[in-house]
Each structure stands twice: as C-alpha cells, then as structure tokens.
C-alpha cells in the first residue's frame, strides 16, 4: 500500500506492506536510525516519536496509521545547526549514558515542555514514566529536562551566564562557554 506523511518537516511517500510497524518504517525505509526499538510490548519507550506533537510508541503504531500525520523524530529536534535545549540539557546534566533510550526520552521531554514550560520534578517523572532507562537512574534525566526548561532558547542566548566554568567547552563542536547551571536555574526561579 502507499502511504504519505510528514517526517521532520518533509513530505514522504512510500510503498509498504500494510503490516509494517512505524518504528521499522522510520528506521529501515527512511533510514532514520535515531529511533530505537527495545521491547515489542509498549513497555520500554525507546521507540517514542512525536505524532502531531504527542509522544507515541512507534513499535505499536502501524506505519499505515501514521499516514497523513506529522511525525517528529530525534533527527528533527535540532533546528539548523542549533540543538534543542532538551538536547543541550541532556549533555549538560549527564542525562544519558549508553544513549539508547535517549531519543525517546528527549522527545517526550520536548512534548512536555511544549505543553508545560515549567514542570516540577514530579511532572517530569510522570511524563517519562512510560519509558525505561537502564543506565541513569532517572535523576539526571529530570535535571536535564529542568535545564532545558531554564534555557528555553538554549545556552547563552536567552540569558547570559552569571559565572562561567570550563565544563564541556568545545566538545559539541562549538566554542560556546557553558554557563553555570545552578546559578541560572536559581535566577529563573526568581524570575518565575
């Protein structure tokens, strides 16, 4: 059968078997391997993508069901060369180790922040509760999402760093000084 959808802002049309899962369509037909597969039973959430802005587990969505919808994967998180604050936050706060669950976690975080720009920790935990991370123990993921909430326009753009330290400088291909996170979160809370 023929299906068409929007993936990361581009229109795609493909001829597929009706039974093809969205996760396999994204990975194997479109070649977007940032979306992972982990369990088959909708429990682990490594396959989460955004469908019309809502997180869905793409291992339990048929590609045919996504036809006509707007799909966003991890490859669509950065705009131009600029990382989404969520991506930056995961690097700043060590929100990932092996990186396998990370794309799904970041997309859920993006959907949460779009709805609720200043979630508390419990709301973040609730939002990612359908996803499993075996490496991080979740606390650093919560901190990563809080970092993104505190830096809606990314590092160094929405607010000037109060103090600087050298952590991470240059490792992501930029020379952006990394701001002092604790000081900035505190600032934001005052503003809020």
């Amino acid at each position: 059968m023929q299906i068409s959808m929007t993936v990361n802002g581009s229109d795609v049309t493909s001829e597929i078997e009706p039974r093809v899962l969205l996760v396999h369509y994204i990975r194997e037909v479109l070649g977007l391997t940032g979306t992972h597969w982990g369990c088959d039973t909708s429990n682990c959430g490594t396959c989460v993508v955004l469908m019309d802005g809502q997180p869905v587990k793409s291992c339990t969505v048929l590609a045919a069901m996504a036809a006509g919808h707007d799909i966003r994967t991890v490859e669509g998180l950065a705009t131009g060369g600029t990382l989404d604050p969520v991506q930056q936050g995961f690097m700043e706060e060590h929100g990932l180790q092996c990186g396998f669950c990370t794309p799904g976690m970041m997309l859920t975080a993006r959907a949460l922040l779009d709805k609720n720009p200043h979630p508390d920790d419990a709301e973040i935990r609730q939002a990612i509760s359908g996803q499993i991370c075996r490496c991080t123990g979740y606390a650093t993921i919560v901190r990563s999402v809080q970092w993104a909430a505190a830096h809606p326009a990314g590092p160094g753009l929405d607010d000037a760093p109060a103090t600087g330290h050298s952590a991470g400088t240059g490792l992501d291909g930029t020379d952006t000084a990394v701001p002092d996170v604790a000081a900035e979160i505190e600032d934001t809370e005052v503003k809020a």
Partner: protein
Amino acid sequence: MTLIHDRQSNPAAGDEDRPIGYGRIQRKEDPRFVRGKGHYLDDIVLPGMLHGAILRAPVAHAKLVSIDTTNALAHPKVVAVITGKDLLGLKLAWAPTLSADVQAVLVTDKVRFQGQEVAFVVAEDRYAARDALELIDVEYDVLPPLVDARKALDADAPVIRDEIEGRTDNRIFDWEMGDKAETDAVFASADVVVSQEVVYPRVHPAPMETCGAVADFDAVNGKLTLYETTQAPHAHRTLFAIVAGIPEHKIRIVSPDIGGGFGNKVGIYPGYILAVVGSIVSGRPVKWVEDRSENLMSTSFARDYIMQGEIAATRDGKILALRTHVLADHGAFNATAQPTKNPAGFFSIFTGSYDLLAAHCSVTGVYTNKAPGGVAYACSFRVTEAVYLVERMVDILARKLDMDPAELRLKNFIKPEQFPYANKTGWVYDSGNYEAAMRLSMQLAGYEDLRREQAEKRERGELMGIGVSFFTEVVGAGPRKHFDIVGLGMADGAELRVHPTGKAVVRISVQSQGQGHETTFAQIVAEELGIPPEDIDVVHGDTDQTPFGLGTYGSRSTPVSGGAVALVARKVREKAKLIAGAMLETRPEDLEWEKGRWFVKGDPSAGKTIAEIAMAAHGTMTLPEGVDGNLDAEVTYDPPNLTFPFGAYICVVDIDPGTGQVKVRRFIAVDDCGTRINPMIIEGQVHGGLTDGVGMALMEIIEFDADGNCLGGSFMDYLIPTAMEVPDWETGFTVTPSPHHPIGAKGIGESATVGSPPAIVNAVVDALAPFGVTHMDMPCTPARVWAAMQGRARPPI
C-alpha cells in the same frame, strides 16, 4: 598528583590555569547520541544483507524427534534454514563456553531449556525470516523438567547433560574457600550464632538494546568481519578462531555503540555463531537481532544463589566468624563468564568489610532446565551475592543482639591502619577507611533524626524502615597469573600516538556500553600529558584497530585499562623528555615536568611543550640515540593486585500497611572509588546501580513454573523501575586511593548494584520489625510484604 578540584579553586583563572585532566567535563560521546547519530548494531546495513531469525524450543526439557523445514524453504524470501544436523556436519553444533563447558548452538539431541535455539532461518528481510519460523515443523518428546535447584542432586533427578559421557548427575562443581576447621571451632565457642537461608533470585540485566550480530564473511579473502554487541571484542575474536576454525588474523570483531551491557554482552551466544554460519552458507552478510523475549529467556541471567548463612559473635557485638554453603543454579550449560580458577566468581569476598577470626564458604554448582548464565548484571563476579549475604546476616545479628545496625558495623569494621588487610579467604584488601564513609553516610542521612522519626511513626502505627549496608568490592581482575578467562590472562593493552601537531589518539582494549570511555580515558591521557581531552581521540571496539585485552566487565575498565592508559602516557612523557633534552641541549635529568611541558630546572622559560616535542619527534632533527622518530608508545598493564572500592548506603522506605507497597523515600550513597576522574560520570554510574538495586530488591525476578516455563519473558512480566519507583538519589564520597594503581583509581561501575539491594531489603525488614519479621527474600513485592504482615505478633494496621 594535582586533582582538578584544587586547580578549579580559582574560577576566574585564565588559560594558563585551565583544568586539563580530571574533573567534571561533558562527555565526548554525547553530541552524537543526542542527535540520534549513535551507531548501534541494528543500525548497520550492508549491501545485500540478509536477516536471520531463531526458532526456539517451546518446552524446557524434551527429546528432539524430528524437524521438517520443507515449507520454510519453499517460502519465496527464504535463503537458508539451518538445523542442528547441519551444524553437526560442520562440527559447530556445540560451542565452548567461557567456563570450560560446551553449549549447544542448535539442538541436536534434546532441548534443555525453554527458549533454546532449535533452527535458524536466513531470509531476504526481517519479516520474512519471522514468517518462516512458523513454517518449520518440529516434533518433541517431552521429558520431565528439573526446575528446582534444590532437587538437582536428588537420586531421581533427570540428568540434564546426559550427552556427556559418564555423567550420571547434575553437579557441575564443588568449590570452597577459607579454613573450615578453624571456622567451625570459632562457631562452637561463640556466645551467639544466627542462621538464615538467604536467596538471591534469578534476575536479568535486560539492557535496553538486545543482543545481535551482523556477520560478513568475505569468501575471497577468507576474512570474517563480525559486528557484535560485545563487551569483550578481543576475547571473542580468539574464541571465534577456536570455535569456527577461522584463523585469528582473518577475524575482525567490531563492537559498535552498545545500548547497555551490564554483563549481558560478555558471552558468545548461539545467535552470533549462527549469523556467521548464515553468512558463510549464503555468501552474503547476515544480521541477527534478538527480540526482548529472546533476550530475557535465553541470554545470560544473573544470580540464582541459595545461600545458607551463619554468623557468630560475642554477646556484646564483636563479629567473630562467617560461614555459608551455597547452591548455585547455573542453568542447562555452565556458561558463566568468569575467571577459570573461580567457578563461583569472587564470592569468597563474603567476609565483607569486617575484621573476622575465621570464615569458610562452599559452593555447589548444579545444572537445571533453565537458561544458562549466572555472572551478569553488574555483579563484579558474584560480589553482589556475597555482599547481600553478609549485609543481611549482619542485620539479622543486630536484631538478635538488639543493637543498632550502623553501630554494629562501626564496631566491627577493618580499621584504616589494618590495610593492606588479608581477609580469611585469601584476598588482600588494598586500602580503605570504612568508618569515615559510614559516618559521612549517617551524617548526610541525618541518621539519628531518622531513627527518632521512625520511633514516632511506629507509635502511630506507620511503617517506616531504615536500612544500612556497607560493602567492599573486589574488582579490576586481575593479576594475570591468578586470573584468566579460558586461558587468556586478564591484562589489557593501550597504544598512544601523539601526532606531529600535538593531538593524540589512544587505542584501548576495553569497550564502553555507556560508561563514557571516550571521555574518561581521554581525561587520563590529558592529566598525564597536558593535552586537552578534546584533542585526544579514544579508539575502542574494533579488534583490527586496538591492542589485545579482555574487555569491559567486573568494573575492570578503569582499574585495568585505566592503568594501561596512564602508564602508556607516562612512557610517552619519558620519551618526550629525552627529545626535549636534545631540543634544549641539556641533560634529560635536568628537566622538570609541568602541565604539558618539559622545562629546565630553575629556568621555567626554557621549555618545550608536548606539541613542540611531537613536531620535533616527527621532524628532521637528530634524535637522541635509541629514540624512534615518533612520539608513540604501547603497554600491556598487568595489575599487581585487584582494587577494593567500598561504600556506605542508607535507605529509607515507607510501606503502605494496606497494600504492602514499598516506597523508597530516600537513598543516601557514599562511595569511595579511590581517585575520581570525572565526578559527573561517577555519579551517573552510582545512580544507575542504585536503580538496579531498587529493581532487584522490589520488582525484578525471572521465575519458572513447574513445567519450566519462563514467567519473566517480557517487560510486561519482568518489571524494571521507571522514574516513578526511584527517589532523587543523594550521593557523597570519600577518596582513599588504591596504593598500587598507577593513578589510585579503583573502579565504580558496579558498586551501587552490589551495595544497594541489602540496604533496601534491610530497610523493608526494619519497617516490618513490629510484625516480628527478621528476613524477607527479594523481590519485596506488595504481595510478599503484605503476606509477611499477616498472622504476626502485631496485627496489620
């Protein structure tokens, strides 16, 4: 050695004082992972690649009567169907395990566990391969299964490994450590002896990425390139040479980005071998990736130890001796990945952190009709089981003596001045300051306040528990003369090249599964040579690109490979000194080293940086006699001893008296892993292990029914903690460097997995003390907790 914390004391410091080596820096691997550009096994697509799928046995124990593959072969997209009979012809039906046993690659005679590999389909695509599995007709003659390890040695137990000539029972090994007579004598005269059966149930590492392989056999050159989810690429290369008969120089193992390992990706699984056979048979690359059920039901499980513990003490709380007998369920094949001379791993560290008069342990390993494995899930070669046993026994003793469990531990710790400390089972602990860690943990927790809060809540009938555990790990195997895996000594290599412009590449034999090796090992070189970490490329996971070594498991990367990397950098530094001497026209012994440059003693302005020396080394100047024209070096590090990280953990739980639901309210973890290279990465390792602990203590178990059916075969049945089940971790640290390690580092990868389960169970049992509960086996599920509250001295509230 200057630690980065000292250097960071002045935040306004200029470039000159910029931290170079250790400290919190972002990970070098993260930019690709956050962009979805990691490159995992299933992301590999080769031209003409086929897909494999494994047909697995639906029963636990059965004679294989017949396999009919006719219909599967008739499927238009099926290229090949391989059965055990085909493998017998190729002499590949049985493969050696990492414990000197053999394991069936495909069943030839009988099925020995549910989920065992029966046939392998190779097809044009993933879906067709799965479709064809259903077209294979297999007839089984079902046999009575052996599920309960306690019955494995009964006279009427079915003999699982009857293919081994002369075998009449299910005993794999008997092993003991310590002095039995001495221990028995201490027990006989002790004031107080308490006994408890402590079961560490079967659990599974369940990394988010399952296991898989892509085999690409080049028939023209006879070279096999095997992409694998492996934590030990070099050991796999040697074993594949032995298993498949392919010359070792014609095998290249590539371990790409690994989506979590935790020991699950150490062994060689039948699927890997089948992908190779599929590629040889089809002449095309073959990918095989297991699904989640295959991962949980057939790959390396962890634990499954039934431990009879006994502890002897004086009436006033001086612990005198420990003894235990363990029944170890290894499943249908002895496929545990552990050093040859240690069939029960490092379980003999069960003496823990205490100064004892005597100790003795014995372990009997048995076969059952369950999946093979045993050493996995961040266990540090069975230190997990050992620590759980001793920390439960100490808590039970504390209850018996009516002593505070923290005070009892403090009274019995090995003292700082006793290190190096030889325990009663042959280990020499390198260094430690246990009391300091325990006191810090109690201070961070507000221990006294917690006990007061608990007393008040008990008055109101509320169930609050405080659990303490203290662990000593033994990691970093090891000295090669004592530790090997299938004859391969457990040393690791490192090669370092400094390029003419002063940038560097370090090649290591271990393989990251998320631990951040590309960052940590760059930081070690940076600390030693003064080259910034971002200018150092870390190459790993490709046997054609890296020196030989045994791989990443048992928390051995930093203790062993980290030592290799520090030493290779020092070798380069010494070579640079000779070249700098020639450049500065001075004797090398008149030079002094500081932050990336050699300079003339007493004249700091006369110096040469590593970059200047590197350019000279590759340039046209006449080099000192005996110095090659490069700035490269290589070493293999054979550690003189293991390292002994330790920690003090305190867990606070609340239990819902109506449902038995346990909530971990707080968890305080103080770890000492010696020198700390990247505190951010260390904290991450601790957090992950603590979460494993919550999983094992409260949720995770692989159980079997009486017919041998696996009851934990999916994530709907095998429960893993989410963000809702774990608290915001509270961590602290002390630093007691290892005296023998080149940089004093001890390893941190598994500390929290080892140390946290007893803290949580001790907290649960503590909460249930008003009901007279003195022990509970994991996982402490609501049903088990609720049941433990029934019919006790005090009624449920």
